[in-house]
């Protein structure tokens, strides 16, 4: 009796299914899989020892560290700002609210080179603001601070974009219930609002960080690309490639690729944990 449905299933074997899946995978092969694979093939072709020495070169280590640190501070700022902006925008209705949403989201649409150029025009030694700071010996451009500013600019809407929808769908009655129970606004935010945002905050932060670590276009303009001083990991790859040191570039490329795999697996596999209720 239980055999009948199984038989039917076999007879009704759908050819389209394996064909379409196979086709999808075949299309992705030259587009995504093979380029990624070649980083690993080339990077380790001269043996692990040579890969390791390329990775531990002092300039390489510095570039990786600088990328991590600048991306970290940009992430901290943008998550806190995104949280605040999402709170204000979803809780209050005011004149210019939509214009503000568009402005916050704008940096995604601006080419990163333009973003870097804009920062230079503002903070550079002859820039709109920079020229008043320069006489006081304050120089923001061509420092780690400039890299953070550039990272903040290009990743500005990412955390906001993830957090705001959660705020929008969050029932107001949770906060009202907390208030009637006797909680202050701060207690309500800490105990009720924030836990519901946990998933959005973590994924917003990871997205921001991943994007900031890989930032190239704006960083190369504002940092000055000084090896061992303001050279981030992507700039290091570019510089070494130009110098013909393919192995040095490749070692860092592997690290950055693995790093983004890690972040996206966290985003993907920790979804359940992040959204647990």
């Amino acid at each position, binding site marked *: 009796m239980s055999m009948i449905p199984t038989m039917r299933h076999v007879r009704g074997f759908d050819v389209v299914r394996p064909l379409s899946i196979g086709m999808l995978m075949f299309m992705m092969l030259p587009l995504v899989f093979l380029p990624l694979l070649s980083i690993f093939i080339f990077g380790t072709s001269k043996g692990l020892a040579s890969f390791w020495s390329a990775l531990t070169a002092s300039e390489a280590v510095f570039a990786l560290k600088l990328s991590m640190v600048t991306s970290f501070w940009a992430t901290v700022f943008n998550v806190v700002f995104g949280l605040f902006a999402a709170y204000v925008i979803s809780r209050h209705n005011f004149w210019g609210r939509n214009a503000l949403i568009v402005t916050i989201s704008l940096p995604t649409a601006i080419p990163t080179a333009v973003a870097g150029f804009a920062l230079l025009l503002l903070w550079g030694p002859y820039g709109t603001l920079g020229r008043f700071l320069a006489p006081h010996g304050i120089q923001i451009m061509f420092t780690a601070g400039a890299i953070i500013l550039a990272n903040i600019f290009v990743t500005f809407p990412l955390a906001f974009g993830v957090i705001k929808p959660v705020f929008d769908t969050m*029932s107001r*009655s*949770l906060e*009202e*219930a*907390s*208030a*009637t*129970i*006797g*909680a*202050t606004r701060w*207690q309500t935010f800490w*105990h*009720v609002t924030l*836990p*519901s945002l*946990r998933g959005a905050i973590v994924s917003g932060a990871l997205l921001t960080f991943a994007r900031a670590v890989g930032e190239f276009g704006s960083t190369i303009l504002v940092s000055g690309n000084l090896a061992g001083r303001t050279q981030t990991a992507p700039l290091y790859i570019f510089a070494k490639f130009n110098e013909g040191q393919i192995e040095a570039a490749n070692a860092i490329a592997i690290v950055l690729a693995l790093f983004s795999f890690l972040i996206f697996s966290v985003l993907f596999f920790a979804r359940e944990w992040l959204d*647990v*209720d």
Partner: protein
Amino acid sequence: MAASAVKIVPEMTPAIDPSPATPQPAASVRAISKRFGQTSVLEDITFDVAEGEALVLLGASGSGKTTILRVIAGLEQPYTGKIILHGKDVTELPARERGVGVIFQSYALFPKMTVEKNIGYGLRIRRRPRKEIKKAVNELLSLVQLEEHRKKYPSQLSGGQQQRVAIARTLAYKPEVLLFDEPFGALDAQTRVHLRREIRVLLKKVNVPAIFITHDQEEALELGDRIAVINTGHIEQIGTPEQIYNHPASEYVATFLGAANILDGVFRFDNVEICGALIGAEVDPTRFKDGQPIKLAFRPEDVSLSKTDNLPDGVCRLSHGVVEEISFAGAYERLSVRLDLMPAPAEKSGDTPYYLTTETPENPTAKPIIATRTKPEASKMKLRVRDHVVVGLTSFTVLPVTAAE
């Protein structure tokens, strides 16, 4: 301050002893009005709730009943008026300082907290000692019979269980008054009836004044020690369920709470005249002026039908009539009877239903009246369509015609 009312004692006695010598209301709403822009949503709302009493605010959606609740809770500011809780004017206090317990329609349980954590929330934010919180949570868990669900998250509970958590979470900090916003709206019919009884028992146990909001008349009759019928921002009538049902103060109350027949009439010679016929009902002559238009309201079950002119004692004879329709409604039989004193329905050829021609707003009296009979009544005297009957009333209410109508 709310914080002073926090201590939990095993018997769940109220924060303030209800001594019968001082009949001060536990919660008092004084002349509350509220506007949103130009629209007035509440007008002169005034009522008291005694310690341990359950008051139901009954009204259609959009009547303003939820706004009253939110004003009491401090989630909305009134335009004028005062809220007094246990003798203290809290009108200017923010929600968190009022010590009011609100059970939201959606329960508003904190999704990332377990049942225990939800219930203990009010005490945790008041920084009570851990031991005390644990003890109070255990007592409340047993009060609402959710001990075995203590570690679960709200999403893992049924609607009824969620509601019990919401109640326990509110009782934890000993609220001055409990406010229930459509507490059974999200539940299926069976759970609803069951939970209504449970809540009544629970409320008697904890002796906290409670205000319920509902649009469901059956719920209002069962839950309320008193009912306030709210219509477009004002209280139509406030009283015990018995008073409201048997002596409605307005046509709105009569028709909103249960079914009612309404006949237009005139007050004449201390009596009610309907379409030129005095019906032999004595009315207090001080209430109306001679010739004043009035409305006669009576419940379907207050209609007494007879085949002869011999109506039982105490039944007031209304008119002759013809049975137009009989339907079976479970526990009782439902008849529609066209009274002779009404203008006859316009004669129309064909199958045109009569109400298309006669049931016009200008002539509401032309509607047939609805009568219900219990099974024993129906079997004692069988009636069929087109039977001629004498219609009497065992009970009725004479209402003034308000200017708005």
